[in-house]
């Protein structure tokens, strides 16, 4: 390998290589360690036609969520992320196919693809713990029809939802306050009060085989968790 190639490779963070090569990442890092990884990704993202350029999904989907949450993680806290950005194509995500009733000369099959592409856990600076999971569920229906002339027509329809589920476990004794306005219709919320109150939000967002929910939509769901605690509860700063 030429010297300049070796030099370029040395500056790429090892986790960056994994993210580019396998489109997967499973790490638990402190904010300073995340900063090193993000620096490495930024450096390659700025270069044109770089072999180590981060995947589009990392830039558009993963990074906005990670960077927003990182802002609330103290220097000694950790942010765990397990992500799979390969999409719906890998066969290990597809469930078994089943045949549906159909008229003669028509064959219909149906299968579901489940893609749990993001799991995240963060120790926040007010002492609470944030958990987030995003899973895409997409139904595929394939219809094959053979005409009298023997010509085969194939049609595939997809329909999907992304299930976003998030919980925030508050520190012991933290007070909660019902927000002045209800959440938007696509967000449901449950609060389990106790020694450590747990606030949980769930949402079902429409997706299809090509389009995932935007990071903005996912942050919309997370927002509800933080409306239940008054700003005063978030006192400790960096």
């Amino acid at each position: 390998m030429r010297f300049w190639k070796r030099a370029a490779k040395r500056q790429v963070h090892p986790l960056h290589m994994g993210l580019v090569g396998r489109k997967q990442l499973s790490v638990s890092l402190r904010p300073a360690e995340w900063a090193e990884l993000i620096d490495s990704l930024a450096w390659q993202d700025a270069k044109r036609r770089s072999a180590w350029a981060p995947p589009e999904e990392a830039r558009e989907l993963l990074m906005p969520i990670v960077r927003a949450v990182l802002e609330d993680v103290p220097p000694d806290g950790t942010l765990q992320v397990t992500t799979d950005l390969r999409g719906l194509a890998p066969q290990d995500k597809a469930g078994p196919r089943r045949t549906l009733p159909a008229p003669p000369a028509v064959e219909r099959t149906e299968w579901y693809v489940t893609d749990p592409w993001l799991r995240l856990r963060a120790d926040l600076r007010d002492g609470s713990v944030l958990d987030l999971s995003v899973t895409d569920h997409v139904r595929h229906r394939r219809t094959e029809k053979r005409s009298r002339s023997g010509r085969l027509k194939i049609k595939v329809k997809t329909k999907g939802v992304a299930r976003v589920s998030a919980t925030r476990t508050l520190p012991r004794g933290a007070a909660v306050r019902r927000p002045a306005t209800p959440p938007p219709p696509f967000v449901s919320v449950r609060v389990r009060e106790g020694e450590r109150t747990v606030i949980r939000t769930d949402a079902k967002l429409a997706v299809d085989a090509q389009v995932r929910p935007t990071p903005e939509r996912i942050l919309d769901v997370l927002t509800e968790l933080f409306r239940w605690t008054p700003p005063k509860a978030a006192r400790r700063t960096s």
Partner: protein
Amino acid sequence: MDPAKGREEDELTPCTVPTGFFLLGLCGRASVASCAQCGRAVCGEHQEADGLCPECLAARSDSPPGPFDKGWSRRYRRDYYERIENVYDDGGWYSRLDAYDRGAFDPGDSHGGDDLIPDDDTSFVDS
């Protein structure tokens, strides 16, 4: 003004740059300078190019930074708080950010310890 005296005052004044995304706060580290544009006290970590605070630097840039850029979170946070107010129909949500952002300019603000964190009633926006 005596530069040495000014520097001494900066050291006594905590940094008032807003931090956090959902859990807003003020930095609170010992400041080393004032922002050349807004005069906000800034610590060494939050002192950006041209002597600006991160907020003023983000406001100055014409093109929105990419998600890997250093100043991205601040710009994104501002956009998020503006947008989420409509999603949740919750006027108090944006005023949270506004209170922290304008807190540095509150003449009655006592800069010390936990008092750095403004309460609900320090909001400048009527809800």
